[in-house]
């Protein structure tokens, strides 16, 4: 029997707020253990939660960025479970009235078709403390770090629209891009600011059955999510073939062994409304204010790049997948650089150079204005491509303008026929065999001659002029 998978994702995203969700402690979980704590996030008797406006704004913008609909009324509940990472016995989470409903992301599937993957809802919740288990020594001990307790999170819950690991991975990549775009989170699975659980069930292909699902946790990268889902689909298919029943449970992904293993789950009960955190009421005006802060989202931007600047879909998608790259590209266009030149030099030269130096586009000394001035000299034939690449290196190490560097270091392109004449004659005399080949119609040989003249000119000659002069001279001699 053929099976198909029904997959839904639950994604926790840690918001990059300056403070925690219910107190003023810095939201820096990575600091030395337990330095960012106060009676509220340690939940001492008598402490009260004070809901952060910043968390609400960052969460709301994230929801709008994923086309979810902000709800006029949402509220926090107490999610009760007992575990040492949650010493107050309940986690504040929006179980009954989430912040936003609906929304979704379009992905391009393996067959090239667009598929809409829908969101069920997005809710806010606080993070819990982190347990550190020290197993070495005679007595293993568990330590609790409260730096993360009360950090603001949103949980994005999808509809079970996914059928393949590929769709899940494409969705997560697009989600990451969009959340980074709106600036609410770094959204990195590697550093734990995005955590993904997958719910997977299988059914005979083409049916509408909803079978028992299995939850898989502990994936540390988007790749792992794909691998874990693929493994779980084949494991469940084998179970079904063997006539075994699938039972509802949770499994952990083991990245080394590349398989999922059953785990013991926490005891969790239904949620009770929290009487202390005020109900959140969002007015249409406030929602519009948040919407106005929303940047142009990547899909819309890519579409505009194709229309406005004549880029291919692939080029436009690449440029708009990172907001910094997109901003840089548009700044170059604003400086009058031709879109294809800007795109080509940004992708092939500047981004790799910035990465090599472990910088960001925004923090690099090569600002859009300086890079544009370099590209302008290139397009006006003041320098050639070789020189432009070399000048770029200098731009990282010096504050001088590209123009000054070109002049001071003699990178100007030689386009004057008189200056090139003598060099060309010398090369032609020295290379009679190649000349014969050119005359025999071998185009490659022409390239070799151009290279020789360029070499003689110290790399600064204008290759177009060299070609023109060579063609002219060879026809004269004939």
């Amino acid at each position: 029997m053929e099976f198909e998978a029904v997959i839904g994702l639950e994604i926790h995203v840690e918001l990059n707020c300056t403070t925690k969700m219910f107190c003023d402690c810095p939201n820096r979980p990575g600091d030395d253990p337990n330095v960012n704590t106060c009676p509220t996030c340690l939940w001492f008797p008598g402490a009260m939660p004070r809901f952060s406006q910043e968390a609400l704004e960052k969460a709301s913008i994230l929801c709008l960025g994923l086309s979810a609909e902000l709800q006029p009324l949402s509220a926090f509940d107490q999610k009760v479970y007992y575990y040492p990472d949650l010493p107050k016995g309940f986690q504040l989470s929006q179980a009954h009235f989430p912040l936003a409903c609906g929304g979704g992301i379009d992905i391009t599937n393996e067959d090239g078709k667009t598929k809409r993957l829908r969101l069920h809802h997005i809710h806010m919740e606080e993070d819990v403390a982190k347990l550190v288990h020290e197993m070495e020594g005679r007595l293993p001990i568990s330590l609790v770090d409260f730096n993360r307790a009360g950090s603001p999170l949103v949980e994005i819950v999808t509809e079970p629209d996914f059928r393949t690991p590929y769709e899940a991975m494409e969705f997560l990549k697009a989600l990451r891009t969009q959340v980074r775009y709106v600036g609410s989170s770094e959204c990195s699975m590697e550093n734990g600011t995005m955590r993904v659980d997958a719910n997977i069930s299988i059914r005979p292909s083409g049916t509408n059955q909803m079978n028992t699902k299995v939850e898989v946790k502990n994936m540390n990268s988007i790749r792992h999510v794909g691998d874990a889902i693929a493994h779980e689909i084949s494991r469940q298919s084998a179970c079904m073939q063997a006539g075994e029943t699938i039972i509802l449970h949770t499994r952990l992904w083991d990245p080394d062994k590349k398989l999922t293993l059953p785990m013991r789950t926490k005891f969790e009960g239904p949620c009770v409304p929290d009487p202390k955190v005020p109900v959140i009421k969002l007015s249409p005006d406030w929602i519009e204010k948040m919407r106005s802060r929303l940047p142009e989202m990547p899909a819309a931007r890519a579409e505009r790049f194709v229309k406005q600047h004549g880029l291919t879909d692939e080029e436009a998608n690449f440029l708009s997948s990172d907001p910094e790259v997109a901003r840089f590209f548009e700044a170059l266009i604003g400086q009058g650089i031709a879109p294809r030149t800007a795109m080509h030099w940004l992708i092939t030269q500047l981004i790799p150079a910035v990465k090599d130096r472990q910088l960001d586009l925004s923090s690099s000394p090569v600002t859009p204005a300086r890079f544009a001035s370099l590209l302008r000299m290139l397009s006006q034939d003041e320098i050639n491509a070789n020189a432009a690449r070399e000048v770029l290196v200098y731009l990282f190490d010096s504050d001088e303008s590209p123009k000054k560097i070109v002049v001071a270091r003699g990178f100007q392109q030689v386009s004057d026929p008189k200056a090139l004449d003598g060099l060309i004659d010398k090369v032609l005399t020295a290379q009679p065999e190649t000349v014969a080949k050119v005359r025999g119609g071998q185009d490659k040989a022409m390239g070799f001659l151009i290279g020789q003249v360029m070499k003689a000119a110290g790399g600064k000659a204008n290759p177009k002029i060299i070609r023109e002069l060579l063609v002219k001279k060879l026809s004269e001699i004939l």
Partner: protein
Amino acid sequence: MDSIFFYRNLEIVAPKDGHLQGVKIAIQPNISVAGWPTEAGSKALLNFKAIEDATIVQRLRQAGAFVCGSTHMSEFGFGLAGSKAGEALRRQAADVELVLDLMGESRLAALHAAACGFKPSYGLVSQFGLIGLIPSMECCGLLSRNLKNIREILQTIAGPDELDFSIPDEEIPNFSPQEIDPQKTTIGFITEPQNELSNDKEAIFRYSVDELKKAGFSLREMSLPDFSLFSLVHKIVGSVEASSCAGRYDSVRYGPRALGTKNWNDMYLLSRGAAFGLLLKSYLFQGAFFQFENYGAYENACRIRARLLTDMQLLLSQADFLVFPIDNGATSGASELLADTYNQFASTVFANVTGQPALYLPPVSGAAHLGFQLAGPRLSDARLLAVGEYLLNMRNGGK
């Protein structure tokens, strides 16, 4: 052991300016004062010392009041078993007592002390630094022989607090003295609560209400058929909230931790098992039952609560205030039983369920009745106290 005080403030406080200067206030050890033992009557908080002052304590001290100590209390303030609330007034060790009112504790303690007891509107007074059990029902009650004290203290402690975001953004009542015209004030007289009283108690209540008639108020007989549901709703919703909220009292960071357990699950179970008293444990079990085994009943109770609130608002659109009997219940002694505790507070829980203000006035001295409660709409606290002051004034032969 001190027969009233759990902790006495021994520091000599220099006289300070402020309109509450010279007022001696006793609190309970579920109201935080930085550095004071704040065990809330529970072994689960054994040796816990508060880290910060509760907002009300900070405001009272700022106004020149002397917080003279904390009195023995029931576990987490639930019921009055083991509590000495009212004793400091009775023995003139304090002018005012602050007692958390979860189901009517401040009003019943006032009855025992033959003093006035007031439960303010929910959300009027900051809960920051109060160690409670039933967050949507409880608030800080006040006991005094004299309503002027209560009024002036409320003037000091009521209102927004940047440490308590749960206080709604509303206009705070003005607690300055105000005139009451009894001719223009209607007091509703609900029949159902009296059905719960024995015949002689009912007669006594009707007799006590005569005082209102004599003072010139117009009385109006009204009906609230579902009055008996207040107790039931409080029991279900309150126990679920308590079971969820008491999760933080895990005896790990403070309180006695069970030793020699195999793993942390056992450690939590045994520590919590040893920490809570029988009454509280049965309450928490009941809450856990509704939350995990019968959530539908909890949801129904929440719906009924909303309906009772509407019923109450409807009555208060036809009368300015309502008068209720008070009854200290059929119990004495067997206070460890949950059912007995709820019997004891059957006449007072309504105001905790609705969040409305309620004032207990003791009887005229020598009178053979228990006094009565007056309740008003939300945020009518100042006028309610003014009506009380008017009545006390009449008793003293005033205008």
